[in-house]
């Protein structure tokens, strides 16, 4: 009896456990996730292809999409359509940082200003950036200007609030010690405040990047004739569904890469050690 129990116990331990992956664990699990997504995509494509109502959209399936993506990579179309989009997101994010970080530092440092600004900021933050579209189109001379404005409007809030939160969490003793050692306001800013909140600012930028990338595509439905949003619209109009799906893949891959890059930056600037006394 006990032998049987022992044997079944051994089987449970040896026969049914997943292999230990060691340092490849992240890589293997990531590949597993992508594989599952491809399978779901393939099933969806197969359903579309075999349906009497939907077979016209069969090019959304993985095989046509990925072969078209390969062509687009080879003939430079991917670079041509991503370049303007990255430029717009970069500029929108740049303005969001230039405005969000200083304002965040000010509302983090000045309690009164924070109290005054809180309601209007929360109010503005909750307005979908895309609802500024008609105003942006009227206010800016160029389509590009309007799109950059929309991206900036979306990106500024996470940066601003994350910066302010970081400033509020600064140990007051760090400021007192710096003052005591003769720091002037510029020293205080560059030697104490900015390094102390670097990770908060970068986390805000990472969130902002995500929002900006999401807002980008609908913003590029506006009058411009370049960029990923335009490419999607254009592919729909010309019924090139494989090109449309390939563009969606490009959007996803670039978004993922940008987020991973921001994650790397955060790790680099993170000064918190786990064994902080």
């Amino acid at each position, binding site marked *: 009896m006990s032998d049987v129990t022992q044997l079944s116990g051994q089987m449970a331990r040896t026969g049914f456990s997943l292999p230990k992956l060691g340092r490849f664990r992240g890589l293997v699990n990531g590949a597993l996730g992508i594989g599952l997504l491809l399978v779901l995509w393939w099933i969806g494509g197969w359903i579309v292809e075999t349906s009497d109502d939907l077979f016209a959209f069969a090019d959304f399936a993985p095989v046509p999409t990925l072969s078209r993506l390969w062509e687009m990579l080879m003939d430079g179309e991917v670079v041509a359509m991503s370049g303007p989009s990255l430029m717009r997101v970069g500029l929108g994010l740049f303005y969001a940082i230039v405005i969000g970080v200083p304002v965040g530092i000010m509302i983090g440092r000045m309690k009164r200003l924070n109290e005054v600004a809180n309601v209007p900021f929360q109010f503005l933050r909750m307005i979908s950036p895309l609802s500024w579209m008609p105003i942006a189109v009227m206010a800016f001379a160029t389509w590009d200007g309007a799109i950059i404005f929309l991206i900036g409007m979306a990106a500024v809030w996470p940066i601003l609030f994350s910066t302010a939160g970081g400033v509020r969490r600064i*140990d007051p*003793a*760090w400021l*007192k*010690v*710096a*003052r*005591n*050692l*003769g*720091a*002037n306001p510029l*020293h205080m800013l560059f*030697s*104490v405040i900015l*390094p*102390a909140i*670097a990770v908060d600012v970068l986390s805000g930028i990472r969130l902002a990047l995500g929002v900006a990338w999401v807002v980008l595509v609908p913003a590029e439905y506006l009058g411009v004739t370049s960029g990923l949003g335009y490419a999607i619209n254009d592919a729909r109009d010309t019924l090139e569904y494989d090109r449309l799906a390939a563009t969606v893949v490009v959007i996803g891959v670039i978004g993922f890469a940008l987020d991973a890059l921001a994650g790397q930056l955060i790790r680099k600037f993170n*000064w*918190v*050690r786990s*064994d*902080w*006394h």
Partner: protein
Amino acid sequence: MAVTRMKDQTPSQPSEGQVQEPAHPRVLIGAHVAVKGLSHSYRKADGHVLEDMDFEIHQGEVVALLGRSGCGKSTLLHMLAGLTHPSEGQVVINGNVVEHPSPKWVMMFQAPSLYPWMTVAQNAGLGLKFTRRGYEIAKRVPEVLDLVDLGAFANRNAQELSGGQQQRVALARSLAPRPEMLLLDEPFSALDAFTRRSLQQDVRKIAKDLGLTLVIVTHDVGEAVRMADRVLVLKANPGRIAEDTQIALTEEERGGGTDAFAREHARLMGIYAEVAEMGNAPTENDFTRLSE
């Protein structure tokens, strides 16, 4: 405690009691402090936290401000540092009225408050950087780190050090700009007893070697006896100086364990208890906790 001791020992740290040559040119003139008619209240309606303070601290003197929590001793220290302005009266250091903080009189706090994104050496050099003496950092920082026995730790991150070592870095950071006076606000109270004693001895020795004026805020009678030449005992509500007494001990006697130390400790404890209105004259045992 033995474990903590090991942790706090550094490769270059000498054994307890070993005398080191000062690796540091003497600062011949420590700050002279005159507190004149100083009173302070946070809000007018609340009455005075400190009242009618008049005293002098001589150049190179080690003075302890001893009192219970809430007697205003820490507020007084902030005023000596120029971090708080008194409501009435003034603090005069070397003939100049104190209006701002200055790297000439540096304050050390209970928490070392090192900047965790910097190395030990960068932390120690900060005062020089802030006072536009960055060119001195390369020479001066190794000097002060050696002085606090942390020369081997220059390139380590501040977070990798033990509590006692971090407080030593804070001491090095305070010493780097060659201050005339150090103001210590219970800087050792978060440390274990062994680390605290060794720092008390080292800080006094460094101050004496350099000729620095040293002011220590403490509620620990033992700390006052070990470190101070002179003790100002403060009473609370409002904060006033109730007693101004000298500690007549040689450097060897300050290490503790001698009759002379015990006598001074008991005498100061008696004054402290009386001022703090703690009732009957205490025995030594009553204050073991307080003095540790």
